[in-house]
C-alpha cells in the first residue's frame, strides 16, 4: 500500500483537482453526475493523462506511466470478467502478468477467491455467475494484482439491492488498511466503507472532510442532499454583533430571514457567509402561519411527495406571495428575489398529509423552530 498525492488539471474535462490520500485511508469521492469523479479515477488509473500537474503513488511519479505500470487497480460498476477465462484464470491473470509461474499464480488466485467466498466457483465460466458472484470475483481479481491503490467506481450500482449489503461487507473487510478511492452515490457506502469524503462539483473539490463532518454540517448542496437535509445559504444579518457557538442568529437568505443557532467554533460578525441546515424531520406543516416564536415560517408551494421510512417527505419550493401575518419570523416579508428557487423538504406522517390534503401546487406553511436550525460558516 502507498499514499496518493495528486494535483492535476485536465483542460478537456475542465478538471482541476488537488487531493492527498494517506497510506491506508479509504476516501469516498462524491458529486453530481459530470462532476469529474470518473475522470479523477481515469487520471489515477492512467487511462487519462493530465494537461498539467503530477500524480504520485507511494512517492513514485506515475503521471506519464501507462496503466499497467502504475499498480493502481480499478474495480468498475460492471465486473468485466474476461469471458473466455475461467474464474480461477481471471484471478490468476494479474499474478501471471507480473511474471509468477502458473502454479504459484493459481495458488494465489485460490487464496484471493477464498477471501471473497468464491473458492467453490474456481472452475466456472464468468457467464455462469450471478451479478453479485461476478463482482466478488472481480474484487478477488483486483486484489490478486497486489495494487498499491484500489479504485472503485460505483461497485454496487449494477447489482441487485438485495445483493449489495453482503458485497459491501466483503469490501469492508478487504479495504481494511488499504489505500482506496471509491466513487459512489450511496450514503451507506460512504458510512460503511470510507473514513473521509471528497465532494467534486464542476471539476473542483468543493468539500474534503471526514464522513461525520460532512453529514453533520455539509457545505455543498450535494452533500446536504446525500445526508437528507436542506441547506440554505446566506449571510449573517446585522444584530447583536459577533455570534458565538450556541448563540441565536438570523441569516439573510434567498428565502428571507432564517433563524437558527450558531454551531461553529469560530465566531462570525454581520455579513459573514453562513449556511443553515434544516432537518426535514423537524419541519411541521400548517395551513396558516402559527403564532409564537422563535420560529421560522416559510410559505411554500408543494411540488411532490415521496415515501421515506414510514413518513412522507413533502418537497416544496418557497413562494413570496403570501401575506404578512404577525408573530415569528415571516419569510415572506422581506423575501429576496429567488425565493421560488429554494427547495425545502418536510417529513410528516401520512395521517398529517391526508389531513392537510397535501398535493402538488398546494400552498402551505413550513414551520421549524430556530433551535433546530444548525447555522455555521459557509464559503
Amino acid at each position: 500500500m502507498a499514499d496518493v498525492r495528486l494535483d492535476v488539471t485536465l483542460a478537456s474535462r475542465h478538471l482541476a483537482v488537488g487531493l492527498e490520500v494517506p497510506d491506508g485511508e479509504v476516501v469516498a469521492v462524491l458529486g453530481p453526475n459530470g462532476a469529474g469523479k470518473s475522470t479523477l479515477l481515469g487520471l489515477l488509473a492512467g487511462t487519462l493523462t493530465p494537461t498539467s500537474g503530477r500524480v504520485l503513488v507511494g512517492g513514485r511519479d506515475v503521471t506519464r506511466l501507462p496503466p499497467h505500470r502504475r499498480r493502481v487497480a480499478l474495480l468498475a460498476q460492471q465486473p468485466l470478467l474476461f469471458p473466455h477465462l475461467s474464474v480461477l484464470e481471471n484471478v490468476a491473470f494479474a499474478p501471471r502478468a507480473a511474471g509468477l509461474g502458473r502454479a504459484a499464480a493459481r495458488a494465489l488466485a485460490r487464496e484471493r477467491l477464498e477471501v471473497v467466498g468464491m473458492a467453490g466457483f474456481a472452475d466456472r465460466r464468468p457467464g455462469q455467475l450471478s451479478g453479485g458472484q461476478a463482482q466478488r470475483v472481480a474484487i478477488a481479481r483486483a486484489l490478486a494484482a497486489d495494487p498499491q491503490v484500489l479504485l472503485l467506481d460505483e461497485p454496487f450500482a449494477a447489482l441487485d439491492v438485495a445483493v449489495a449489503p453482503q458485497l459491501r461487507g466483503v469490501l469492508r473487510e478487504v479495504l481494511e488498511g488499504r489505500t482506496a478511492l471509491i466513487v459512489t452515490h450511496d450514503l451507506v457506502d460512504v458510512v460503511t466503507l470510507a473514513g473521509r469524503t471528497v465532494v467534486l462539483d464542476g471539476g473542483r473539490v468543493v468539500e474534503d472532510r471526514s464522513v461525520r463532518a460532512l453529514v453533520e454540517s455539509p457545505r455543498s448542496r450535494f452533500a446536504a442532499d446525500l445526508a437528507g437535509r436542506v441547506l440554505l445559504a446566506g449571510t449573517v444579518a446585522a444584530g447583536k454583533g459577533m455570534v458565538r457557538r450556541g448563540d441565536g442568529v438570523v441569516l439573510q437568505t434567498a428565502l428571507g430571514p432564517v433563524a437558527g443557532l450558531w454551531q461553529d467554533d469560530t465566531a462570525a460578525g454581520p455579513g459573514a457567509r453562513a449556511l443553515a441546515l434544516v432537518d426535514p424531520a423537524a419541519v411541521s406543516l400548517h395551513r396558516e402561519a402559527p403564532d409564537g416564536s422563535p420560529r421560522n415560517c416559510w410559505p411554500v408551494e408543494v411540488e411532490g411527495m415521496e415515501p421515506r421510512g414510514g413518513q412522507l417527505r413533502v418537497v416544496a419550493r418557497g413562494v413570496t406571495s403570501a401575506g404578512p401575518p404577525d408573530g415569528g419570523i415571516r419569510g415572506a416579508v422581506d423575501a429576496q428575489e429567488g425565493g421560488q428557487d429554494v427547495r425545502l423538504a418536510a417529513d410528516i406522517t401520512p395521517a398529517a398529509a391526508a389531513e392537510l390534503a397535501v398535493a402538488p401546487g398546494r400552498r402551505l406553511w413550513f414551520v421549524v423552530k430556530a433551535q433546530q436550525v444548525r447555522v455555521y460558516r459557509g464559503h
Partner: protein
Amino acid sequence: MSREPRYAVPGWLWIPAAAGLLFLALPLAAMVVGTDWRHFGALVTSPSARIALWLSLRTAAAATVLSLVFGTPLAVVLARARPRGHRQLRALVMLPLVLPPVVGGLALLLTYGRTGLLGRWLEVAGVHIAFTTTAVVLAQTFVAMPFLVISLEGALRSGTGAYERVAATLGAPPGLVLRRITLPLVAPGLVSGTVLAFARALGEFGATLTFAGSLQGTTRTLPLEVYLQREVDPAAAVALSLVLVAVGALVVLTVGSRTLGGDHG
C-alpha cells in the same frame, strides 16, 4: 437468451421475397441439372483440373496466410491506435472490395510489372513477379485481405475495449493484453474473416488473369481453368464450377450466415 417475439410482416412481402430467393437459387439449380453426372468424376479429376485445383489451393492458402500476417496488425492498429485519418485509411482498405478485379490486376501490374513503380527496381535485382505464381498470390491477397481487415476490425470495435483497460490496470503490458485478451475475444471475427479471405482468394479471377496470366501449372487457377474449359469442353467447365460452388457452400455453412450477416456489428 430468450427468443425475440416474431415481427409480423405484411403478407404481400412474401411474393417479392420469394422471387428474390428464386433468382439467387435458380442458377445453382441449373448448374446441378446441367452437370454431366455420369462423367463427373472423370471431369473433375482430369490432369488439367487437378493441376488447377492444386494450384488454387496452394495460392489461396498462401494469400490467406499473408492476409493474416499483415491484415491482423492492420485491423488492430485501425481499431485501437486510431492513427490520424483512420477513417480515410479504413476507406482505403475497403477500396479493393468494391474495385473491379480487372482494375486491381492492372494496378498490380503497374506496381510490380516489368516497368512498374517497384517492378523496375525488382527487375534490376533480378526478381520477376508478373506472370508468376507469386503474382497469383499477390493478386489474391490484394482482394482477400480487406475482407479479413474489415471483419476483424468490426469485431474489435464491438466492445473489447473495456476488458483491455481492466487487463492493463491489472498490470498487463500491451503485448500480453493483445495475446491473452484481445485476440481470444475477437477469435470468432478472426475465424470468419480468415475463411472469407480464403474463399475470396480461391474465387479470384479478374486480377489474376490481368496480373498473372493463364499459364497451366503456374498461374492458371481453378476459376481460370473453368473459363478456359467453357470454350473447349463446357461439360468440364460446369463440373469444375460445381466444385467451386461446393467450396463456397462449405464456407457459408462453417462461418455461418450469422457472422456473414454482420450480427456482431
